[in-house]
Structure formats: C-alpha cells, structure tokens
C-alpha cells in the first residue's frame, strides 16, 4: 500500500532539504542575480552615453549622426581627423583652450597651496585669541553664495585694469579658499602635539616647524586639494565668462559652451570637442580615485 509509514521519513528529508538548504540557496542566488542585473543596468546608463558620443565623434560629415536604431559602439567609422579639427581649428582651437585652462589651474595651485597651508597651520596648531571666532567666520564664508560678491569683485578688477587677463581668476586664490583651509586644518590636527613641542625645544621657529615638519606630512591632503582644484578650474564657466573677452584666452569651458550655443555645430565635431573636455577629468579620476573618494568622504563625515 502507498503511503506506508516507511515512506514518510524520506518525504520529510526532501522537505527539510528544500526548506533548509535548497530554497535559501536559490533565494540567495536570485538576490545576487538581481543585484548584478541592477548594477549592470546602471553601468549601461553611465557608459552607453559616453560610448555613443565616441561613435558620433568618429563619424565623417556625410554620415547621419542619428541612426535608427542608435549606434552605440564605433564599428564602421573611425574619422580620427575630427579630433584634430576640434583641437586645432583656428576659429576655436581647443588645444589652446586646454593650455589656457591649465595656466589658470597652475596659478591656482601655487596660490592655494601657499595661502591655505599657512592659514590652516595657524588654525590647527597655534593658540591665539579669537581663534574660535575666526574659525566660525571661516565656516560661514563657505556658505555665502558667491553671487553676493560677484558684481563688486568684477567692478574691482575692472578698476584695477585686470579685465581681459587671467589675474582675476588667479589672484584670489592667494587669499585662500575656506573649503581647502578647512580640509587641510582637519588633517593637520591629527598630528601629535609633541612634534611641535620637540622642534620648539630644539630651537626651531614657528615657520621652521611649519615648513620642515608639518608641511611634509601634509602631502596626502594636498594631493586631495590639487585634485579638487583641477576639477573646479577645469569646469569653471562663470568666472572665465565674466573676465575673459578674447578667443585666444578662452578656457575649455567657454570654448565648449560657445561652440554649442553660438554656432550651429556639426554633431560629430561637437562630440569630439566634448570628449576633449571630458577625458582629462576622467583620467584624473582613474589615477586619483583613492584621494578623491577619501577627500569627499572625509568632508561628509566631519562636516
């Protein structure tokens, strides 16, 4: 007869296996698959536009840029000359724009490192009356929107005869940047106090302590600062737009913005120029990912 008592134990074994082992495992696998599916979908959202852009940038003039269905990957056309045109076209030479942007960036690096490390050192390691108050002022200046200073600053630099030069875009960095001062100060505070005391006993001046003991230890945070500065100098549109009036001086952001808005550009050339603007930050991101992520994360945690 079926259903004899001797069969029950084997059914139980099957059920128990299912319940305790097979179903949980299947659920875990399904969950993992779903996770990967979502992540891959998101990667598509990030990477496919870039790949489409490269495809469009490599098309010759006589091929339609928009095809149905869309061409996501460069397979047929490899018109590398488009990049050459984008970089060297005398009307909007993106190579020149790139160099100009790098000059401004270089000036900002010198100014920021000079001023922010000095100021951060005072806030982090020196005792003086008013330090708490001045530090609050520093925090507040981070929140004041730049617009409230934009017009008077412009009029000031105009008065000084600096309109049409890089000076308005570089000189303010010698007065320090609240955000970078804050970042460096937080880092400098982590060093043990004995460092300064020992050096002081050895007869080292405050500047000596700053220059030969504290500053060399700050390399990691300065790397973070330089990476952030590169991204902000590279992307800045409003500053150069206000102060520069000559195509020869334009930065890459103005060059691209003008190319996209004033002329009726060929999509392939516009996409090539856009890649010229996108690639350096992406390269910086790949080489400095740790610094960048560490920097952003520390701001979020301590801010």
């Amino acid at each position, binding site marked *: 007869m079926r259903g004899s008592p001797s069969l029950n134990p084997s059914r139980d074994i099957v059920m128990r296996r299912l319940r305790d082992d097979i179903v949980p495992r299947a659920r875990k696998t399904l969950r993992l698959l779903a996770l990967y599916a979502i*992540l891959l979908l998101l990667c598509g959202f990030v990477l496919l536009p870039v790949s489409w852009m490269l495809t469009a940038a490599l098309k010759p003039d006589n091929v339609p840029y928009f095809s149905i269905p869309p061409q996501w990957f460069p397979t047929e056309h490899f018109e590398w000359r488009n990049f050459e045109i984008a970089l060297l076209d005398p009307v909007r030479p993106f190579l020149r724009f790139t160099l100009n942007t790098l000059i401004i960036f270089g000036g900002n690096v010198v100014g920021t490192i000079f001023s922010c490390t000095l100021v951060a050192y005072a*806030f982090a390691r020196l005792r003086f009356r008013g330090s708490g108050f001045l530090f609050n002022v520093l925090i507040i200046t981070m929140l004041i929107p730049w617009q409230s200073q934009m017009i008077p600053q412009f009029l000031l630099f105009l008065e000084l005869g600096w309109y049409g030069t890089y000076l308005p875009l570089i000189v303010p960095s010698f007065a320090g940047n609240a955000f970078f001062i804050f970042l460096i100060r937080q880092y400098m505070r982590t060093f043990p106090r004995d460092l300064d005391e020992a050096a002081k006993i050895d007869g080292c001046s405050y500047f000596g302590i700053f220059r030969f003991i504290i500053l060399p230890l700050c390399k990691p945070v300065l790397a973070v600062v330089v990476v952030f500065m590169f*991204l902000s100098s590279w992307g800045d549109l409003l500053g150069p737009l206000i102060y520069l009036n000559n195509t020869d001086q334009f930065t890459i952001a103005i060059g691209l*913005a003008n190319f996209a808005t004033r002329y009726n550009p060929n999509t392939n050339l516009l996409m090539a120029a856009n890649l010229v603007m996108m690639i350096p930050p992406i390269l910086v991101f790949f080489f400095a*990912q740790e610094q960048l992520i560490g920097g952003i994360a520390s701001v979020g945690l301590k801010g």
Partner: protein
Amino acid sequence: MERREERVAYLFLSPWLIGLVVFIIGPVIASLLISLTDWNLLTPPNWVGLKNYEKMFSDRDFYNSLRVTFRFVIMSLPIYTVVSLSLALLLNQRIRGMYFFRTVLFMPSVIAGTAVAVLWSILLNPDVGVVNQVLGAIGIAQPPRWLASRDWAIPAVILMGLWGVGGGVIIYLAGLQNIPPHLYEAATIDGANASQKFRFVTVPMLTPSIFFQLITGLVAAFQVFDVAYVLAGRGGTRASALQFYLLNVYEEGFQNGRFGYASALSWVLVVIATIVILITFRTSERWVYYESEEGKS
C-alpha cells in the same frame, strides 16, 4: 598664551584675513550699496534708493527665474536624496566586482557641468535622440519632448544631474561604513530583522550625512549656472523654461549692463537662500541624530 605665538598666528592668517576684507566683506557691503544705484558703467552711478527692489515686483524675468529655480529645488532634492541613498546601499553590498561598479558609477561625477549639458542636450533630442529611441523601444509610444517642452525641461536637467550623482553617493557610502558594527550586532540580539535594522539603525545613523547633503544640495541648487547657460543659450522655449536665477542675474548684469539691478537681484537670492537654509537647520533638530561628541575632538 605666548604673545609671540599669537603674533605669528596672525601673520600666518594674514593672507586669508586680507582676502576676507578685500574679496568678501568689502564686496558684500559694496554690492548692497551698488544695489541702491542704477550703475551701468558708462555713466556715473545714480542713487535710486529702493527702486531696483520695487522694480522686481513687475519684472517677469525675475518671477520666472524664481519659479524655475524653486521648481528645480523642490523636484531635484528629494529625487537626488532617494537615488543617491539607494545607490549607496547598493554599492555597500559585499559582492565580487564591486570595485569595478563603484568606479564606473562614480566616474561621471567628475565631468564638468558644461560637458554634461552638451552631451545630454544631444542625447535628449526629442525626435532622433537616443533616450527617446530607447524609450520607444521599450514601448513608450509618446516619450517626453524633454528640452523642447516647457514641462519636461527641468526633469531633463534633473536626469542629467542623476548621471553625476556619484559625489553624493560617496558621502552616504562613507556614512554607511562609519556605522559601528556593534549597533547591528545589538539589534540582531534584540531580534530585529533586516528591515527593522535599516529603519532603526541605518537611517538614524545616516541622518547627519543626509542633512549635510541637503544643505550642500540647497546651496548648489540656488547657484545652478553652467547647465542653464549651455541649454538656455539658444533662446526659444528653453530660454524661459530654464531661466535659472543666476543666469538671469548674469544676463541683467553682464549682458544688459544693469549692475545696480543685478546686485539687487543677487541680494534677494542671498536672502531667500539664507532663509531656506535656516529653516532646514531649524527642522534638523527634530530629525538629525548626532552621536555624543565624547572622545572626539
């Protein structure tokens, strides 16, 4: 306290102190004064009192730019918060290949706003752009007309912003990894399930990060410029649908040469932004959880 140390400290601070006066405090006061004149740089400034502020009440561009900016703030902040928080939870999973996924998803956040706007204005072309082709392929018969439409222009800008949402994700991810494991262990002992742990451990511990992101997001949202300049630059529907506040200030000042009026406009923005930020701070006491500062410096 040594007097010498104090003197040295102020010497070290001097670049910033000078900058504070010359580039921040001076200009802030000056802009208040300029906002009471009708300065156009060609003729000497005339004192007009509060006329510039009165003029705003009948200025269509002012109202429009205020509406555009507020629409953007109200729509974008909740979306960005939810998306970057979920993305952080997703990227916090311990699975093989996570480094690759994180790298890819963080990458667009370093790309300049100008370049993002140029790329997406092409992708979002309503007739032949790839976004609408993809939407068509998955069965959406009448996809939005994005930048060509009054209602969809701001969602289009938000979509572009989602592409670069990685910066916020990094902050949340750091917040997640900073939650002490013993809290989860204690919750497990108390018999909490996964969703209870999320609700009662993860969310409260993340509120400082959420608050930080909300404040920086607000400050940034009031200062949208690059995207607006690139997308609204061609005139037409876009010019009014994407007339962000700062773009309007720029146009009044640097294109129309009305420096007095532009200064007044920027003051109004500063006041509005300050009020919104103060309100946010005020509410934060109710929902932001801070660990005791004991043992921290």
